[in-house]
């Protein structure tokens, strides 16, 4: 019987990774995700795993690359400025078709910023903070339960497609505590990894590379990557909707913003106001099709995000001019106010 306990988001993520079979963690301290390396430092040795506090984020991501290349389920976590330092490694992981799990517990930026929650790393996560034509599978939890669930899902999807997975969280989802059903009955079933570097005695050697100086190596690799991405876009889109069936105005939000939007929508429905919320769960692959469908049934949409406007661009892309898409964006570590979300949705309802 899985136990139910009050759990911190960051801890749920870490324990979820361990439950999913993660036995290698390489990381560097940065607020607001320090609970993760702190937890892994004692937890991994308990299960025969290895914890390394690397000398920097640059070292962490490269250690992750090494472990992933050797076929292990491995992980690194960081927050915004740290994820910036990791971008070269992220590009390499993607180019090398290496499965792994990363997490960015977003904080205020740009620059060193503050330690409050934000959602200003959306572009970096889904449009590529690293160089080249690559994508990551990006999962956006909005609760400690999802922090645990998506650690597990992240590994499953990453191993299935050989694409690195990123959990895009924030300082509130990471630090808050909420009831979590611990998935201790989950049995990880990672696929065979015949491509992994495990010592080639008795078999042909494996090569994991991202450099081809010949005419077409990089072209071929890109074709392989793109083919995978089309599959992922077809099969792995995930989102959640609240009260959208008959909504006149729909809010689009992920992570903490989606919880705020949902609370406001519930209150407004109690007043007879027809609002709904769509919450993207996979930020890549993005639910463009579903948002486009919803756009043909509503008067307008309101994107609520903790930044100056990043996901709003993808919503506008999906909506393609059908209806107005407005933004309520709070940059710099400020939280969207329920009262303001209410006013903005109300104004859109009245506009007609």
């Amino acid at each position: 019987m899985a136990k139910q306990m009050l759990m911190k988001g960051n801890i749920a993520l870490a324990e979820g990774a361990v439950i999913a079979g993660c036995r290698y963690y390489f990381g560097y301290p940065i607020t607001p995700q320090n609970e993760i390396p702190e937890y892994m430092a004692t937890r991994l040795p308990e299960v025969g795993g290895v914890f390394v506090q690397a000398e920097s984020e640059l070292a962490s991501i490269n250690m992750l690359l090494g472990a992933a290349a050797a076929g292990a389920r491995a992980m690194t976590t960081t927050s915004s400025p740290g994820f910036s330092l990791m971008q070269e490694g992220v590009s390499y992981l993607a180019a090398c078709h290496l499965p792994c799990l990363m997490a960015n517990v977003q904080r205020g930026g740009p620059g060193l910023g503050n330690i409050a929650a934000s959602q200003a790393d959306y572009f970096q996560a889904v449009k590529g903070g690293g160089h080249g034509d690559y994508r990551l599978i990006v999962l956006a939890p909005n609760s400690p339960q999802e922090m645990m669930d998506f650690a597990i899902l992240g590994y499953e999807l990453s191993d299935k497609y050989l694409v690195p997975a990123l959990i895009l969280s924030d300082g509130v989802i990471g630090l808050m505590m909420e009831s979590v059903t611990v998935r201790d009955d989950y049995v990880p079933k990672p696929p065979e990894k015949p491509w992994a570097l495990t010592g080639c005695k008795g078999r042909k050697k494996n090569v994991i590379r991202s450099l081809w100086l010949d005419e077409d190596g990089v072209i071929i690799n890109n074709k392989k990557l793109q083919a995978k991405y089309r599959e992922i876009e077809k099969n792995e889109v995930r989102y959640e909707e609240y009260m959208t069936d008959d909504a006149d105005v729909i809010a689009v939000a992920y992570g903490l913003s989606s919880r705020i939007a949902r609370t406001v929508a519930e209150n407004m429905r109690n007043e007879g106001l027809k609002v709904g919320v769509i919450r993207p769960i996979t930020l890549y692959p993005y639910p463009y099709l579903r948002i486009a469908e919803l756009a043909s049934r509503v008067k307008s949409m309101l994107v609520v995000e903790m930044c100056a406007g990043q996901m709003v661009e993808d919503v506008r892309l999906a909506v393609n001019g059908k209806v107005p898409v407005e933004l309520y964006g709070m940059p710099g570590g400020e939280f969207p106010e329920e009262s303001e979300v209410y006013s903005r949705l109300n104004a859109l309802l009245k506009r007609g």
Partner: protein
Amino acid sequence: MIERIIISGFGGQGVLSAGLMLAESAVHIGLEATFMPSYGIEMRGGTANCHVIISDKKIGSPIISEADSLIAFNEQSILKFAARVRDKGLIMLNSCVVQKDYDFPGRKVVMVPMESMAIDSLGNQKMANVIMIGRFIREKAFITLDELKRVINEKFLKKGEKVVNLNYQALEIGYQLQ
């Protein structure tokens, strides 16, 4: 039901500990709860507050804009959060440190001399926060005394039976306070 509680004070007063006790009790009895801590950078003397939401339904934002209750361990907390307490809400104050005579129209005010009670009855200031919690659960009956005792036992068992019993006493004297 929904109960949105802000607990606030100095770092070191057991603000977060108090909030955790309430949240853990709630989850144990099958309610939904969220706990959101907020710290300043200092470990002692800086501000600390937590937002605890307890409900029988799924909880939205873990951040409280309008509170049902404020439990203030120091004066700054009142200046910072009193305005957020809704009409007919509850404000509990640590009357040992609150200097001014505040007026909170429309809200119920409960004064608890938590530190002097802790020192006089238990000889130890550390349990002052538990006294406050004891008084709080008498106001809000959704968590019973027994349930909170269970959480205290779980939390302090490794510090020994003496500490557990002192905390039980703190809870009781808070609960009995008029």
